[in-house]
């Protein structure tokens, strides 16, 4: 398993389109993807999971990837968490 702590950069947080893109990307990898904010942990392949985390700009989130191509997935997904979409 590999992990990285990321800080959300998008001004409106990780809602809506950015969240959708993240889930689509996560789903394209065979590895399992998890996000943890504080005490809440969510499946990174689930839009519902991501939405219940309610990620806002400046939030710290722990990204964990476990399985095949985990390094590649970690790099791409971490970059998405720190992207500014607008």
């Amino acid at each position, binding site marked *: 398993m590999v992990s990285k702590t990321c800080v959300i950069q998008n001004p*409106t947080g990780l*809602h*809506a*389109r*950015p969240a*959708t893109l993240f*889930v689509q990307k996560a789903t394209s990898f065979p590895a399992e993807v998890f996000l943890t904010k504080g005490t809440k942990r*969510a*499946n990174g*392949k*689930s*839009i*519902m*999971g991501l*939405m*219940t985390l*309610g990620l806002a700009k400046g939030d710290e989130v722990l990204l964990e990837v476990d399985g095949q191509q985990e390094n590649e997935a970690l790099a791409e997904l971490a970059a998405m968490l720190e992207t500014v*979409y*607008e």
Partner: protein
Amino acid sequence: MLQKGIAAAPGIVLGRAVVKKAETISYIRKTIAPDEVASELQRFRDSIQTANAELDAIKQKAKLEMGAEEAQIFEAHQMFLQDPEFVGAIEQKIESEQINAEAALEEVRDSFVSIFESMDNEYMRERAADLRDVSQRIMKKLLGISDELDTGVEGPVVLVVHDLTPSDTASLDRDKVKGFATNIGGRTSHSAIMARSMEIPAVVGLSDITEHVQTGDLVIVDGLSGVVHIRPDDALIAEYEEKQKAYQKQKAEWAKLLHEPSVTADGRQVELAANIGNPQDAVQALESGAEGIGLFRTEFLYMGRNNFPSEEEQFEAYKAVAVTMGERGVVIRTLDIGGDKELPYLELPKELNPFLGYRAIRLCLDQTDLFKTQLRALLRASAFGNIKIMYPMIATLAELRKANSILEEVKAELRDQNIAFNEKLEVGIMIEIPAAAMVADLLAKEVDFFSIGTNDLIQYTMAADRMNEQVSYLYQPFNPAVLRLIHQVIEAAHKEGKWVGMCGEMAGEELAIPILLGLGLDEFSMSASSILRARSLLKQLEYNKMEAVSKYVLTLGTAEEIRDYIQQEVLNRLA
């Protein structure tokens, strides 16, 4: 039997009703035997698959008929269907609690809905509505409830529904559905706008029509006078067939006016323009005889998405309309958002009085980056046609000056970068706040034109929310106070040699046109479908007489007296 509502789209249709009530779906909660778990899971997965296939079809249809923006909502629905947390939680419940899929679905849905709804975020609450919608779809599949609207009804269909949702609209069979009747809604609700753009008769706001009509009943929708006849007798049917013929004939007469100028009997020429909400509407406006675009609302670019539209995206949209309209004027209103029109990604705080709050130009003068991007796109597009810029919700001269100074900054940037734009581009303001109307003489010196936005002007002048049924009687376009303001605005502009348009609903109203013409209004902007009727009316009116008529009605005491006077002394005397 007859029911009265609000005439939302003109025309008459006789057809068979297809009734769709506000749905309540019930199921029985059951426990299942351990050896039934596998088949229950399979039944659940099948329902997901069918729902998904259905959404695929709806999405394609929506894309073709309403554009990619509208189709996005169904894509979001599909993501729920594929969501491991959502689907996984339901499957787990079926297995561990040994309950039927319906019960598991409802429990999981409710838990997510309550999480979403508890979030202090408009966007998340909207997703709760999406989740309800998609869960309903799965539930129907589980229970074998058909979503088909036309169940064995032959010939032209009149859709009788509680309200027409975007989902209903997308799944409509446009070849069959020839009219709408709805319980709720007004002239500007989604269903009314849809009906006008599909050019089929509609009556809305009928309160409980779905209770009085059965699928298969014969109904007459009279979108001219706003009534629906349920199970009419032969005499009434005959009467309406005549009315329908007369209306068709009149429409044919109007069609002859398509390329005619808008001139009164005594030779005064005015401009009849269309209000549009997206670039595609411009084509329809031209086909309906519009001589220009009097109001292009730019909100469509900002709504139904999750981030601000780029300059490039906006430029393409504005340019498309400018090119379509050629030499004809296109008045583009800068962003009129905030208040009751929310953008989830703008994250504005909730306000107690949204209509008196942080919206339109107030927001743009504060968030200048947002404003500048739009102005840049508008200026660039002005090189491709006859674009005019209009600021909404101006209350003071200082606001106008500030907006203009930002516009000048953007122009200077473009000049520095050698980017072409129309140096002579006209800039105007909407007059929709009484304060602006009162100082129209001062504002007129610093604009190229005014456009009177009556919907808001009336509401602000009368201090009455037109959506509030208890005070909507005060929403009076013909109130002497409103007419005097309009008169004052037109006079002030003309004194400075500037032109005045009107882009509220009032500009297309048969009763209002004689007065507005007499007061000297130069441009009438309305929904495209009203243009030919207005042109036909103008041809029969004499400007000189209407000048006297309007002077006289300004001395009358009540809205009712004014309406009666115009009806009896002007309209009833026309051939």
